[in-house]
């Protein structure tokens, strides 16, 4: 297991000005970030945003065109072995030899990472327990279901007990129960390590991650704590129901209102500028105009809306 004096906040991964092209496409464009011990960092982005490319470079599978990656104090280019020893990597496709059993696969992987026979046996028992693989040790990896293959992939990344885990879409192909178990596992692992995971699923980010990075077209468009992202959800929408609604134009004339949507049945959605308390204004106006206000609900933007805004906003700028 890890050393006793685990330092929370110790920087495990530092990425500086990382870039990578594929022919004409700039897959990753001058990306900077750090990962500290105790963080679970979620990589979000649409397909082709550069998440997998970034992770492949962090794992040392792909060479960057420019930039520097330091893992656990070792530069990935200058001391590749020391750096790689500190990383457990799960690619998009779990790298499993179809003709090997789960035990053989794990043993091979452990040996590749420098564990001797005895250490490998101990490590295998530990990760099989953690990933729920104790009953499938003798089965061929090629005959396993997608969910089990994914678990073997995660177990494989954990074998040499690395301080840094890089998981490319770890819960893809898992059923909801398995996905929940794996998320809990990732959260637990993140307490004593640094974890980077990529996903399309926003609930997964909310459930597992402490920090979020959103990529678009190879660039980081948001990086920060999950709480920061959630602060962006300040409501800029209010839904109201009026018994005697005025013409829409009257509502649109209210101060700070940017847009009015008519929802039918006397319901309206009022979009307003941020950082304004709209409720008192609407109340005053409703009383004065005799609109008979029945309901007033501030609407929160979902994470998904923020995500879409962040990824699309940038597109119009670029």
């Amino acid at each position, binding site marked *: 297991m890890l050393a006793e004096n685990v330092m929370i906040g110790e920087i495990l991964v530092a990425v500086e000005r990382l870039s*990578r092209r594929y022919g004409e496409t700039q897959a990753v464009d001058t990306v900077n970030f750090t990962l500290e011990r105790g963080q679970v960092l979620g990589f979000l982005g649409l397909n082709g945003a550069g998440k997998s490319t970034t992770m492949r470079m962090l794992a*040392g599978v792909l060479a960057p065109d420019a930039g520097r990656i330091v893992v656990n104090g070792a530069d990935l280019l200058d001391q590749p*072995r020391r750096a790689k020893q500190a990383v457990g990597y799960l690619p998009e496709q779990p790298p499993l*030899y179809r003709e090997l059993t789960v035990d053989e696969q794990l043993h091979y992987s452990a040996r*590749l*990472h420098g564990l001797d026979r005895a250490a490998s046996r101990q490590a295998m028992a530990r990760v099989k327990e953690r990933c729920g693989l104790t009953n499938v040790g003798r089965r061929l990896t090629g005959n396993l279901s997608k969910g089990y293959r994914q678990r073997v992939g995660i177990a494989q990344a954990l074998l040499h007990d690395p301080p840094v885990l890089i998981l490319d879409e770890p819960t893809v192909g898992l059923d909801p129960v398995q996905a929940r178990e794996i998320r809990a596992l990732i959260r637990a692992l993140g307490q004593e390590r640094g974890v980077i995971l990529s996903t399309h699923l926003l609930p997964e980010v909310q459930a597992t991650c402490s920090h979020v990075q959103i990529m678009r077209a190879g660039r980081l468009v948001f990086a920060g704590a999950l709480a920061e992202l959630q602060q962006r959800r300040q409501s800029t929408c209010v839904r109201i129901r009026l018994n005697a609604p005025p013409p829409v134009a009257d509502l649109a004339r209210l101060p700070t209102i940017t847009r009015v949507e008519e929802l039918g049945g006397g319901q309206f959605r009022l979009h307003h500028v941020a950082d304004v308390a709209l409720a008192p204004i609407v109340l005053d106006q409703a009383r004065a105009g005799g609109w008979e206000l029945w309901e007033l609900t501030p609407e929160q933007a979902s994470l998904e809306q923020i995500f879409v805004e962040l990824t699309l906003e940038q597109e119009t700028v670029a």
Partner: protein
Amino acid sequence: MIGVIAAREWRGLFLSPLAWTLLAVTQALLAWIFIILINDFQNLQGRLAGLEHAPGVTDLVVAPLFRVAAWALLLLTPLLTMRLLSEERRTGTLDLLLSAPVSATQIVLGKYLGVLIFLLGVVALTALMPLALMTGAALDGGKLLAGLLGLSLLAASFAAAGLYLSSLTAQPLIAATATFGLLLAFWIVDAVGAGQGIASQFFGYLSLPRHHDALLLGLVRSEDVAYYLLFSAAFLGLTIRRLDNLRLRG
């Protein structure tokens, strides 16, 4: 680390029916040839008895057998080496090796050794047939060992070339076809001419079987051994470069 990779590669071969089939077919064909050669030798024996410096059983049975075995290796090696790297690229297992704390050199040497040990096993099985003659005939041990050395060096060269071509494509069959073509080209390269010009001498030097012929006669010349070692080292070096390049190209 090289040993870990080599062991998996070697064991992996036996987990596929392909390797067993190749072993069985090669062994059966060589045994058939061996019986024919023995039969011929027995028919000739009467006439040989009268000759001075008559060729012995080693020259008339073992050398031709090894010549056929060389052909068998030429046909069999591409099928064994085709999956070495191409399959790993196709299924994504190469990521496991590339993200592990091992160098490209270790990966390449590990894979090479794994398949080479298998091929040396084929050579050893081939050697068992002439060794069986020891019970009833006088074998020339020196010539036998030189012949085995020749076969082993050929196997080492074939495997290195196959490994390199397997790194060039993600399709095993393309790797096998290309390996076969390349080896055959090196096999017949001296057919352009047997003249005394520099060009024919050069092509003659490049030819794989020419260096083997000398060994079959019992002549172990450093020139021939060096040729095979250089041939293997060149392709291994190319493979290591190629693997590093794959990381750059993605």
